C-alpha cells in the first residue's frame, strides 16, 4: 500500500496533476492564437493586483469553499454528491424566504437565521437522495444529478409564480430589506484603517467559510462521527461489522454535505445580489467537485484550492474583458483539473510509485520478495500492516 511517502502522496501527485492541467491549458491558449504568459500576467493583475480584484477573488473563493467542503465531506464516506448545484439553489431559496418574510432587527441575527434556513433547505435537498441511496439502493450520483434539474425547475417556478413582485417582468424576488445587508470587506476593514475596494462583493461570509473549514476538520478527524464516516468510506463491510449503521452514516453525511452546499447562499444571495435571481449559483456547485478533488478532501486543501479557483474565475473575467479569450477558458481549465486530479489520478501515480520503488529497493534487503526464510520482526510487521 504505502509505496510512496506521505508528502509525495499529499503534495507531489496533486502538484504534477495540476502542472499537467496548466500545461494543457497553456497549449489551448496558444492554439487559439494568444500568448499564455501574457494571459497569466493579465489574470494575476486583474485578480490580485488591486483590492477590487482581491474582493472578487475572495468572493468567488467563498462560494467554492462551501461547495468544495460539501463534496469533500461526502467523499470521506465514499459518496459522490454531484448535487451541490441544486442544494445551493435551494439554499438560496431558504435565504430568500428568511430574509423577505421575517423582520430581522440586525444583520447578525439575520445571518444566523438565514444561514440556518439555507443549510436546512440544502440539507433536505441532499437528504432525499441520501435516503434513496441508503434505503432503496438508488445510486446517489444519478439521483443528485436529477435533483439538480428538479431544483432548477422548482426555482424557476417559485421565482416566476410566487416570489416575483407584482408588476415586475424579471424572474427574481424582491430586494431584501436593508436590515439583512451583510457587511462587506470594505465595511469590515475600514475601522481598522485598511482601505478596501467599495464595489467588490466579498463579505463577512468569507469568515463563515473559513470557520466552516475548521468545523469540518474537527468533525472529520476529531469526533466519533467523523471516524465512523471515514471508516465507512474506507471499507463498508468492515464498518458494518464494527457496528456502524450504513443508513445512518449515509444520511448524516449527505445532510452535512447538503447543508454546507446550501450555506453558500449566504454569500451569493444574501451577501452579493441581495435578492434571489435565476441561476444565482453560476455553476459553483460543480466547481466544488474540482476544488474537493484538488484539495484531496482536506479542509486546508479545499481552502487553498478554492482560492485558486477564485483567482481563476476573476482572472478569467478580466481575460474576457481585455482579450478575445472567452470566459469559457475557465471551464476548460476546470475540466482539465477534474480530469487530471480526479479521473486520471493513476496516470500520475503509477509511474511515480514505480519511481519510488526503484529508489527504495536497495534499502531494506529482506523485504517482501524473499520473506520466507526467518522473517525479521520488521518485515513481519510490514506484512501485517498491508
Amino acid at each position, binding site marked *: 500500500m504505502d509505496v510512496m511517502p506521505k508528502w509525495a502522496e499529499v503534495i507531489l501527485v496533486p502538484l504534477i496533476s495540476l502542472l499537467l492541467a496548466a500545461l494543457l491549458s497553456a497549449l*489551448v491558449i496558444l492554439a487559439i492564437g494568444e500568448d499564455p504568459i501574457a494571459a497569466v500576467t493579465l489574470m494575476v493583475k486583474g485578480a490580485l493586483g488591486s483590492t477590487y480584484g482581491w474582493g472578487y477573488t475572495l468572493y468567488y473563493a467563498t462560494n467554492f469553499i462551501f461547495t468544495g467542503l460539501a463534496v469533500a465531506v461526502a467523499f470521506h464516506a465514499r459518496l459522490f454528491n454531484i448535487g451541490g448545484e441544486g442544494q445551493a439553489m435551494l439554499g438560496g431559496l431558504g435565504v430568500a424566504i428568511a430574509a423577505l418574510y421575517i423582520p430581522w432587527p440586525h444583520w447578525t441575527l439575520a445571518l444566523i437565521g438565514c444561514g440556518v434556513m439555507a443549510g436546512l433547505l440544502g440539507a433536505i435537498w441532499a437528504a432525499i437522495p441520501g435516503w*434513496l441511496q441508503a434505503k432503496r439502493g438508488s445510486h446517489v450520483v444519478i439521483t443528485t444529478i436529477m*435533483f439538480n434539474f428538479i431544483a432548477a425547475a422548482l426555482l424557476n*417556478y417559485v421565482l416566476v409564480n410566487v416570489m416575483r413582485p407584482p408588476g415586475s417582468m424579471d424572474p427574481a424576488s424582491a430586494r431584501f430589506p436593508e436590515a439583512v445587508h451583510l457587511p462587506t470587506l470594505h465595511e469590515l476593514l475600514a475601522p481598522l484603517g485598511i482601505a478596501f475596494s467599495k464595489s467588490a462583493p466579498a463579505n463577512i461570509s468569507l469568515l463563515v467559510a473559513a470557520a466552516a473549514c475548521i468545523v469540518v476538520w474537527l468533525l472529520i478527524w476529531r469526533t466519533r462521527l467523523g471516524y465512523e464516516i471515514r471508516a465507512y468510506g474506507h471499507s463498508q463491510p468492515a464498518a458494518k461489522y464494527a457496528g456502524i449503521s450504513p443508513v445512518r452514516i449515509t444520511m448524516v453525511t449527505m445532510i452535512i454535505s447538503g447543508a454546507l452546499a446550501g450555506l453558500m447562499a449566504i454569500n451569493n444571495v444574501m451577501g452579493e445580489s441581495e435578492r434571489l435571481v435565476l441561476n444565482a449559483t453560476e455553476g459553483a456547485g460543480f466547481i466544488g467537485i474540482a476544488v474537493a478533488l484538488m484539495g484531496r478532501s482536506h479542509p486546508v486543501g479545499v481552502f487553498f484550492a478554492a482560492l485558486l479557483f477564485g483567482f481563476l474565475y476573476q482572472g478569467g473575467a478580466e481575460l474576457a474583458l481585455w482579450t478575445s479569450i472567452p470566459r469559457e477558458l475557465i471551464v476548460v481549465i476546470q*475540466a482539465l483539473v477534474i480530469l487530471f486530479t*480526479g*479521473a486520471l*489520478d*493513476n496516470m500520475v501515480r503509477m509511474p511515480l510509485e514505480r519511481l519510488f520503488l526503484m529508489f527504495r529497493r536497495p534499502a531494506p534487503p529482506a523485504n517482501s520478495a524473499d520473506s520466507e526464510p526467518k522473517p525479521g520482526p520488521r518485515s513481519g510487521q510490514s506484512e501485517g500492516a498491508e
Partner: protein
Amino acid sequence: MDYITLIQLLDSTVRLATPLLLACLAGLFSERAGVFDIGLEGKMLAAAFFSAALASITGSVWIGLAAGIASSLALSAVHGLASITFRGNQLISGVAINFLAAGMTVLIAQDWFAQGGRTPSLFGGARFEPITLPFADAMANVPIIGPLYEELISGHSILVYAAFLAVPLTWWILFRTRFGLRLRAVGENPAAVDTAGVSVVGLRYAAVAIAGLLCGVAGAYLSTALQAGFVKDMSAGRGFIALAALIFAKWRPWYALWATLLFGLFGALETRPDVIQSVIGIKVQGQILSALPYLMTVVILAGFVGKAIPPRAGGEPYVKER
C-alpha cells in the same frame, strides 16, 4: 384537440426524441459493458459543434457528420483511458468530459468564427434535409392515413430513420451475437469473461467506442438537422435526460425507444401549453413538464414502480489480479 394537432404533436415528439434515443443507446452499450457514462452530454455537445463547424466550412453535411463522430470518439477515448486503462473514477471522468466539451466548443467557436460562441447558420447541403418518402404527396389527401403518412412518418431527416433502425440493431447485437453476449457478460462479471480468455479491456473499449459513435450522430443531428447551426450549450441537458431514459428503460433497447419517445413527448408538450389545457382542462406549468423526466426517473430509481437493476459490475474498474 383535433387530429391534425395530434399528428403535429407526435411529429415534434419524434424530432425531439431522436437525439435522446441515440444518446440513450450510447449509454446502453457503455453501461451494459460496465462503464458508467455521465459524459453523454459532453460528447453530444462536442459532436454538435464539430459537425456544424465542418459542415459550415466545407458545405457538406456528411463531412460534418464525420467530424462530429470523430470528436465524440476522441472524448470516448479519454473516458476509456481514464476509466479502463488507468482505472480511475468513471463518474469523475464523465463530469470532466462534460465540462471539457462545454468550454472547448465555445472557445474554438469563438476562435474560428468569432460570432460569440456559435457557428454561422447552415443551409443547403450543409444541413440534413427532410426526406419525402415515396407517395407522400400523393397520399396527403387520403383521410386519416394520409396526414399520418405525410406528416408523421415521412419528412424527417435521414438521421431520424437511422436512430429508429438503431433500436432493433442494438437489440440484435446485444442479444443475438457473440459479441453482444460477451459485452453483457463483461458488465455483469468481468472476471468470468477474463477466465474464458476474452479481453475485458478490449470489450470495454469497444463498448465505449460504440457509445462515442452514437453520441456523435446524436450531436450532429442537434446542430445540422434539428437546428441549423451550433449555439453555446445547445445540448441543454439532453445527455442527462437520455441517462434518465436509460434507467427508466432498465438498460433494454426496446424500452429505451418507448422511454425516449415519452420524454420527447414531454418536450413537445412544453412548447404547446394550449394543447395540454384543452385536453385535461387545467393549466400545467412548463416548469413541471421540464422536471417530469427527472422526477419520474427518481421514482423509478427508488423502486416504487418496478425495480431498475443496473449491470452488476457497472462503475467498477477491472483489476486482473488481486
